[in-house]
């Protein structure tokens, strides 16, 4: 009788038991007959001696210790039958649980991959990051000392490349990593080979043009072809040979940020035309450095040994073009390492608070759904009093009945959880897509791992207990006598004393969610309609990459002007201008300025944002010139240097009086460099957003592109469309711009999308909290309706009598509405208090309103009152339509 047999071969064991007992009987009969007793009598005597066969069997089954399993099977079967009888109840309960559990699982999947999981690499807990972003010269210093400091170290970075062979750009996300990458992380390609430090060195030439592809990219771009190794992929117009495919679970060294191709660090030298890739720049901060600790080495020890060599590393990598003040800070700034098992924390810090907030929101929704189902179950338990007391009269114990009811609850919640998993799989992918934007793509591993499944199972059981315990407890009050007293009218239970508090709790929690939804919706509405100082709808951005263009550096500004002119000539284009930067793109360029009369301001306080533009740029954006003039073609190299500033600059930096004609100067750099030239203000424009949509509009200085000393390869043409939908111009603009220079790669983005991408977090918060707030409101409404309606049914006779005795419609309405009103008022009061307390925790996610925003709170309370009134009024109205004559006849 092994455990396996006991659990899974129960029918075989039962058959054996039958055979054994039957054998016993037959032997007894045979013995009796041998004593000369007739067949019939022998059988009778044997059976009588034996006693109850079924009883004997039951005792034997008890010995097995698996009785509970048999009971469970019975309970499940019975439960399924009961649920099949009340389909509407079952469907409503399962669907609301599926939604609740599904939403919780979906968000937990995100929490799991964002906050709990470690990178799919060897011993992730031994990985550390050198805190911050680093230049390549610093990396080379660390690299030279890596065996002394760590078990190994690697530097990596993300880089957006273009895989088109001309014309419109096809962006790819490239992960650039040093040759130590594979050894330090302990990952290997599933196909092909990795690159090593032997490839990844300066001057390795063609050896550098190799790439590994991510699993997803392999599937998408090469259809998962096995012979992908040896094929080529064009990156910034350079043919790279594919040498391998990375495993599917490896999404990169940073959680949240995926990659398409993985190329050697030194490949950046073949990706730009000059062949430098910024490797020698001492102020180009672009690398993350991940290291693996030596066996037994602690994080503190690693930091200590890094501090030991810090002076040498810093001295050897001093930025050449920094002012003295900064260099002192540079030397002082201590290097330290931090755990990197989950990769760097930028994605986590960006999404942690929103995701945790939504996790709480969906948990509350599930609680409200539980309260609803508990109420329905309580009502049903009262309706089932007759059935339950009958079973009790037939010998079932109270515990046994309670178990039966709990089994039913568990069936409901498990069905809900199963459906919820499907919903979650889809929901989490949708959520990631919503959080993701072109500029900040979010890539997460959303597979349902054991943690997610355990979480779902746990909340399924927890919810079953939450809504199942109260109904199961009702069996305590039942006695078998009830079966006789009640003639199947099912009223013994009456109104359960828990239903009131449950509805109050629902109303309170719903109000919290509605307040949250109100706060997030208002935040998003404020941000979405905020005046950024420019028109977002008519503008189409054409981002340029002129890296592969044949023009020389001193012809570059002229190329941009020619591109802008060509764009302006396209039909449907009202005007077009070029600029180095576009608003709220996430990029920025700033400089400190000398402020006349305020010499004591710190370097940081004198910073202003800069942009280089061609004439007419502000007109494209609809930003008005308030004084002076726009740039003209005459403001070119060699002509007097001029600038346009915005009003914020004037307010902040200039003494009262006209700004026009004033000379401004950038703060001097190092003493050995020529002083920056004086610039004359020729125009003042309105303020507009530069980098952030949330911050105050900042002081900004515009330079004519033709006079800018900076050499740039990015930039954009901003096009103001005369047609309603700027996106329709893409084709004709591509043709016109490619005609000017076929080697320029182009990517298009409506300005509105660029602005919206910055609001992804706020949009998702508004969308989700709005959805769940609405759902909570609906659930609370349904709950209140159910309880009130049930109460009316119970008091039908009483109301009928009252009406027969002269109570009019208003009296009846008041009777029913009175109780409902109490529930709503109590719930709203508790909910408002709870919201006031909770609101301060979301303050950082809000914009332009206080966490205790009066309008939001008032609105939420009014909405709740409205829903409560409707939910209670329907049954109350039905009560007032009760026909007393009919009721009296029934009685």
């Amino acid at each position: 009788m092994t455990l396996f047999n006991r659990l899974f071969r129960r029918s075989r064991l039962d058959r054996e038991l039958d055979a054994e007992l039957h054998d016993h009987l037959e032997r007894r009969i045979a013995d009796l007959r041998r004593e000369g007793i007739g067949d019939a009598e022998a059988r009778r005597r044997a059976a009588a001696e034996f006693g109850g066969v079924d009883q004997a069997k039951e005792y034997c089954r008890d010995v097995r210790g698996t009785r509970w399993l048999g009971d469970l099977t019975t309970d499940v079967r019975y439960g399924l039958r009961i649920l099949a009888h009340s389909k509407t109840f079952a469907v409503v309960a399962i669907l609301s649980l599926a939604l609740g559990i599904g939403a919780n699982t979906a968000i937990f999947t995100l929490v799991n991959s964002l906050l709990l999981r470690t990178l799919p690499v060897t011993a992730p807990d031994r990985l550390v990051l050198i805190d911050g972003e680093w230049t390549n010269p610093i990396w080379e210093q660390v690299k030279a000392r890596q065996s002394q400091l760590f078990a190994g170290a690697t530097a990596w970075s993300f880089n957006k490349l273009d895989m088109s062979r001309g014309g419109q750009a096809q962006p790819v996300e490239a992960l650039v990593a040093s040759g130590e990458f594979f050894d330090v992380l302990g990952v290997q390609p599933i196909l092909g080979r990795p690159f090593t430090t032997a490839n990844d060195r300066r001057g390795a030439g063609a050896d550098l043009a190799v790439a590994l592809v991510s699993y997803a990219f392999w599937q998408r771009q090469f259809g998962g072809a096995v012979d992908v190794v040896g094929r080529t992929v064009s990156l910034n117009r350079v043919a790279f040979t594919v040498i391998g495919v990375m495993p599917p679970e490896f999404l990169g060294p940073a959680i949240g940020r995926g990659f398409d191709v993985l190329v050697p660090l030194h490949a950046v030298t073949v990706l730009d035309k000059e062949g430098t890739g910024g490797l020698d720049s001492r102020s180009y901060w672009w690398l993350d450095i991940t290291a693996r600790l030596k066996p037994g080495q602690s994080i503190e020890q690693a930091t200590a040994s890094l501090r030991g060599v810090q002076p040498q590393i810093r001295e050897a990598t001093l930025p050449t073009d920094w002012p003295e003040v900064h260099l002192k800070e540079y030397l002082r700034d201590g290097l330290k390492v931090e755990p990197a098992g989950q990769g760097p924390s930028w994605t986590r810090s960006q999404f942690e608070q929103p995701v945790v907030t939504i996790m709480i929101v969906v948990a509350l929704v599930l609680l409200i759904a539980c309260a609803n189902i508990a109420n329905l179950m309580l009502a049903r338990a009262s309706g089932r009093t007759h059935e339950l007391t009958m079973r009790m009269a037939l010998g079932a114990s109270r515990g046994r009945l309670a178990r039966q009811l709990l089994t039913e609850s568990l069936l409901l919640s498990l069905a809900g959880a199963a459906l919820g998993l499907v919903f979650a799989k889809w929901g989490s992918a949708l959520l990631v897509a919503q959080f993701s934007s072109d500029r900040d793509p979010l890539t997460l591993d959303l597979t349902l791992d054991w943690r997610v499944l355990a979480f779902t199972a746990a909340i399924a059981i927890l919810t079953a207990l939450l809504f199942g315990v109260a109904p199961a407890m009702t069996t305590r009050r039942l006695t078998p006598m009830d079966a006789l007293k009640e003639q199947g009218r099912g009223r013994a239970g009456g109104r359960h004393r828990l239903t009131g508090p449950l509805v109050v709790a629902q109303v309170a929690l719903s109000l919290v969610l509605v307040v949250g939804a109100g706060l997030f919706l208002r935040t998003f509405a404020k941000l979405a309609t905020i005046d950024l100082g420019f028109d977002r709808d008519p503008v189409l951005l054409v981002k340029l990459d002129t890296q592969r263009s044949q023009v020389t550096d001193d012809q570059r500004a002229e190329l941009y002007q020619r591109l802008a002119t060509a764009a302006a000539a396209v039909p449907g284009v009202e005007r077009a201008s070029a600029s180095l930067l576009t608003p709220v793109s996430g990029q920025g360029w700033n400089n400190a300025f000398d402020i006349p009369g305020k010499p004591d301001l710190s370097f940081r306080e004198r910073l202003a944002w800069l942009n280089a533009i061609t004439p007419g740029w502000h007109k494209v954006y609809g930003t008005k010139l308030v004084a002076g003039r726009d740039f003209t073609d005459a403001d070119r190299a060699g002509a007097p240097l001029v600038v346009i500033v915005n009003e914020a600059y004037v307010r902040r930096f200039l003494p009262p009086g006209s700004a026009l004609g004033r000379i401004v100067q950038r703060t001097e750099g190092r003493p050995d460099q020529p002083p920056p030239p004086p610039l004359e203000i020729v125009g003042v424009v309105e303020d507009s957003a530069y980098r952030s949509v949330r911050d105050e509009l900042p002081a900004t200085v515009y330079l004519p592109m033709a006079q800018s000393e900076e050499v740039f390869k990015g930039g954009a043409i901003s096009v103001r469309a005369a047609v309603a939908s700027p996106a329709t111009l893409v084709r004709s603009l591509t043709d016109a711009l490619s005609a000017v220079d076929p080697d320029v790669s182009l990517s298009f983005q409506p300005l509105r999308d660029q602005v919206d991408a910055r609001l992804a977090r706020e949009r998702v918060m508004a969308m989700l909290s709005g959805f769940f707030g609405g759902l909570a409101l609906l659930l609370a409404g349904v709950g209140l309706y159910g309880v009130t309606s049930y109460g009316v049914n119970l008091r039908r006779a009483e109301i009928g009598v009252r009406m027969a005795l002269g109570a009019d419609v208003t009296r009846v309405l008041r009777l029913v509405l009175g109780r409902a009103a109490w529930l709503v008022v109590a719930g709203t009061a508790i909910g408002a208090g709870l919201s006031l307390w909770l609101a301060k925790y979301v303050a950082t996610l809000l914009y332009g309103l206080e966490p205790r925003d009066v309008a939001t709170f008032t609105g939420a309370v009014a909405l709740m009152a409205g829903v409560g009134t409707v939910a209670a009024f329907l049954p109350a109205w039905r009560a007032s339509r009760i026909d007393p004559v009919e009721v009296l006849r029934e009685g």
Partner: protein
Amino acid sequence: MAPSKPDLPQGTLDLLVLKTVALEPLHGYAIAQRLQQISRDVVIVQQGTLYPALHRLEKRGLLKAEWKPSDTGRDAKYYRLTRAGRVQLDEERANWKRLTEAVGFILSEGES
């Protein structure tokens, strides 16, 4: 009505069953018959008690059951003492001896 049969003290049935099957493997009916015969009809075990006891002993690993062809031509379930069962039997027998002696002393005290 038959003369009253003494109830078996708690736990004694296990000891008797172990002892009965110690000589040779037996099926349930034979065990019941053997107990009745040897005790000269004093010990009559109800089937509702015997089979649960057999199954309990099997589950504890003191008995091992096997379906084998029997004299009736049908297969019968034979119980056989395991090594653990033998150890248990010796132990229980010693206990029983000590206990009955002790009980005997107490009951005979004052009679001599």
